[in-house]
């Protein structure tokens, strides 16, 4: 893993929760969406908060695609889940919201999960099938 790859994973981690929070604020401004008025859902993108949220989610998507080009899906998803912890910490430090013991336990579990997957290999390498081998070749993992 190079520094550039860690930066890409950091981008995936940060952009998504910020985008979700902006979307949440925009959708709360618009109010409940009725199934009979789907056009209001399409027009929601004109709300500035929703538009900013979408910009952040585009940045998230670009870094997510870059990460998937060199790492497994089952590596990228847990490795970038620190975003949930980030949201809770921003709420605690920035907005002085209280975090319940259950949430602290959730933060501890997520952090442990990230540590578990980040310490392992980032990609599964499927070896070239042997000429006389069976179609389902055994997979092996390589260290990043």
């Amino acid at each position, binding site marked *: 893993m190079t520094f550039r790859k860690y930066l*890409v994973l950091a981008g995936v981690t940060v952009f998504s929760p910020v985008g979700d929070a902006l979307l949440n604020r925009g959708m709360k401004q618009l109010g*409940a969406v009725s199934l009979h008025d789907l056009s209001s859902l399409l027009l929601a993108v004109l709300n500035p908060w929703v538009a900013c949220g979408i910009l952040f989610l585009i940045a998230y998507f670009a870094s997510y695609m870059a990460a*998937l080009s060199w790492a497994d899906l*089952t590596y990228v998803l*847990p490795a970038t*889940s620190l975003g949930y912890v980030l949201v809770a910490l921003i709420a605690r430090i920035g907005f002085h919201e209280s975090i319940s013991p259950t949430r602290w336990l*959730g933060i501890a579990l997520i952090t442990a999960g990230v540590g578990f997957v980040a310490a392992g290999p980032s990609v599964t390498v499927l070896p070239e099938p042997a000429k006389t081998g069976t179609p389902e070749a055994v*997979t092996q993992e390589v260290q990043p």
Partner: protein
Amino acid sequence: MKNIYAWTAIWLNVFASTAGNVWLSHAMKKVGDVGELRKQYGFRRVIKRILTTPTFFLGMLGMAVAFYSLLFGLAWANLSLVVPAAASLTFVANALAARIFLHEQVGRRRWIAALLVAGGVALMAV
């Protein structure tokens, strides 16, 4: 009634985002390391290569459905329920789908990580 709508949106989000993730991961593995490709051939060639990979568009479709189902969910329930519930279920669904469709080796380490993160995300919603 709002609760039923919210959970329908959450399950639709889980299904669509899992399908989208699998297609997108398949597409990007076909494209190759975009950082290395950009160094060798330039940014335009990388974009062209991505846009000529059919599963990329299926992935985008899955992500678009997931995005709108998230918007629906957020209109009917709080962010603190919709995002953690959808995300924790998606972690487990993705691990299963990646093993079945992408033939990723999901060893004990990755299963433990996926379950820890899914459990942690679910607790964050409490």
